[in-house]
């Protein structure tokens, strides 16, 4: 199969690629750090702030339970938000770049 040869260094310097790279890196690492911090608050809080976890919110349901449950929704939320941003921004930039490069 005849492979198209790309000039990778040139693509890497393409303003579209640089924009994609900046936006993506900021988004990915930012939200990854947020999700990790949010997650580690759970074992840390359970161990060092048990009083907080015991506070009843509605009838017998306490803060600890709601916080643990919120982990699921926060994870899903980040995933959905990422899909939204990626579909809107990253994929568009990628498409434009690919079109430009394969001209």
């Amino acid at each position, binding site marked *: *199969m005849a*492979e*198209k040869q*790309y000039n*990778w*260094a040139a*693509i*890497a310097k393409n303003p579209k*690629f640089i924009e*994609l*790279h900046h936006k*993506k890196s900021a988004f*990915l*690492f930012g*939200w*990854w750090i947020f*999700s*990790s911090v949010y*997650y*580690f608050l*759970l*074992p*840390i809080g*359970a*161990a*060092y702030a*048990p009083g907080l*976890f*015991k506070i*009843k919110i*509605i*009838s*017998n*349901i*306490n803060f*600890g*339970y709601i916080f*643990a*449950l919120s*982990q*699921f929704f926060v*994870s*899903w939320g*980040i*995933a*959905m938000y*990422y*899909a939204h941003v*990626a*579909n809107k921004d990253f*994929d568009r930039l*990628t498409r434009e*770049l*690919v079109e430009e*490069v394969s001209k």
Partner: protein
Amino acid sequence: MKNIFVALLITLSLGTLCFAEEPKKDAPGAAPAASAPVAGQPATTGTPAVAAPSVAVPAPAAVPAKPADDKGKLKANPKVTIPIFLIIVGATMGVVVWSAKQTKSASDFYTAGGGITGTQNGWAIAGDYMSAASFLGISGMISLYGYDGFMYSVGWLVAYITVLLIVAEPCRNAGKYTLGDILAFRTNPKPVRAVAAISVVSVSTFYLTAQMVGAGKLMQLLLGIDYKIAIIGVGILMVGYVVFGGMTATTWVQIIKAGLLMTGAGVLSVLVMLKSGMSPLQFFTDIATNDKIIDHVKLLPIYLKELDAGTATADPGQRFLEPGLFLTNPLDQISLGMALVLGTAGMPHILMRFFTVPTAIAARKSVIVAMFIIGSFYILTTLLGFGAAIHLSPQNIMKVDKGGNMAAMMLAKTMGGDISPFVGDLLLAFLCAVAFATILAVVSGLVLAASAAIAHDIYVNVIKDGHADQHEQVLAARVTSLVVGVMGIVIGIAAEKQNVAHLVALAFAVASSGNLPVVVLSLFWRKFNTAGVISGLVVGTIASIGLVMVSPNMTYPNKVADDAKKAYTKLEKEVADGKVKPEAMEKTMKTISDKKAEETKNRGGKSMLGLDKPLFTLKNPGIVSIPLGFMAAILGALLFPSKRSEEMFDEIYVRQNTGIGMAKAIDH
């Protein structure tokens, strides 16, 4: 080709025959056998013990004064179980025959030709990931220790954020079949592939061994069949799926399993919630006011300790919904959390799933689908665990299995049995079949990942320099899968009496400290190179294994002796106080003498590495080994810089971000 199918069908039907026949034969003797093998090691089937509870589970000898009565066993009805097993095995067999016809090239074998859709792959990832241990173990942990079990399950979902944001799409864009392909991209391929393959095979072997031993124990417990027969049965099916159907069959087995598992968990959860009038508030009130749960909490070692310290709450039922009844070492929890959050993304069998979809967009979609399935599953598991505690009582669950691993199964029988005894049998049989399918799906994925590393990285690219035609590649992959599968069976049988609970922790530790740092640095760091990959993989892997070898996971004979002494001292005191009923006296005396013998036998012994007590106090090494892995990878790369690797960074970075020139370019 036809002959192979016939042979496969025969072996498989023989395999199923063993399942069909054994329960009848063993039926009368099965009950006592059912609780015996797990009593000594409550953690074996339920890998959650990985979570490193530093609470010693009360020595099993504390209860055997009561002989297993009717409540102390759980028996599947073979008349219902066998047809359901046959249907599932038959369905997966059909898939294998169908997919074997489509498996012609190496790409078909390893990645199903890249023809899996995002949604399908999402279900398959979920099927690959949710092991029997997480299904049975976590629901059991919740049924016995409440909140901590739920908290434990969270990390298994959060782990997928790393997979989604950092590895899924880049791996799809820059990779081909294996982890080695990504790492070898801009490095010296031979040594890198060889080291990567060793790391992949060790991760897979650790995980596979834990799964196989768990499978054997579980089938023994559920169906009353012999441990060896269970392993051989699971092994034959697993090898059959992978060798003949490759990735296509493995994927569909995983999809079927995920569907079954979600159905089972969903039906049971609805039945549990119906009992509480479908109201979550009522459900939690039912937990906190349940007499049996209150009695159970009052006797938990942590609660007793809190009583002594004067910090105990006056409401033991509510205490069940609060943290700290089981997971008492926060550092160990954080360490486990790190291994999960970074290790899942470094698991070769999970990474491999991203090569099966055609585009990065499909890879992204598949992780999101998987996250919804896995997350919903863990939320349902909570309902099952708490439901089992309410409707069966923790006491009865512990009678069947010390670690609570049978909680979900018992719940199925009881919830269904409330409708009619037949429904009870049916639900139990269905869940047994689900557990079985679960094991098959997970082990098949592992065998495929390990054989891809050996056949594709070592054989094709190191030994044959990448010069192997499609036919030879597929043949090499099939032969390797067969060998890996047979090794899995042999190891599974050999490890029957071994303590394997730490192996899952070890697999995640190696994946997070060895594989993940080098994958991330390969994709994102310009200066990364051959020396970095090798030093990162070697140091991360060795540090993880080394730390686990000197951790509390290993068996320390002096500790066993101390526990035995504690157990018999307690029993002797009960005898002296006249608390033991006359009819149980003989059994108690026997337990005391057994425990004394155990003490004498173990006293003064050393652990595998000749230690008296653990050198490293955490069960999960991640908190130390992950930074070590990263540092070694970075230092290695800085000490031995490579101009070529730096020059090639633009290429891999553009590829992983955009998918330009995907996959085919490294086909030469």
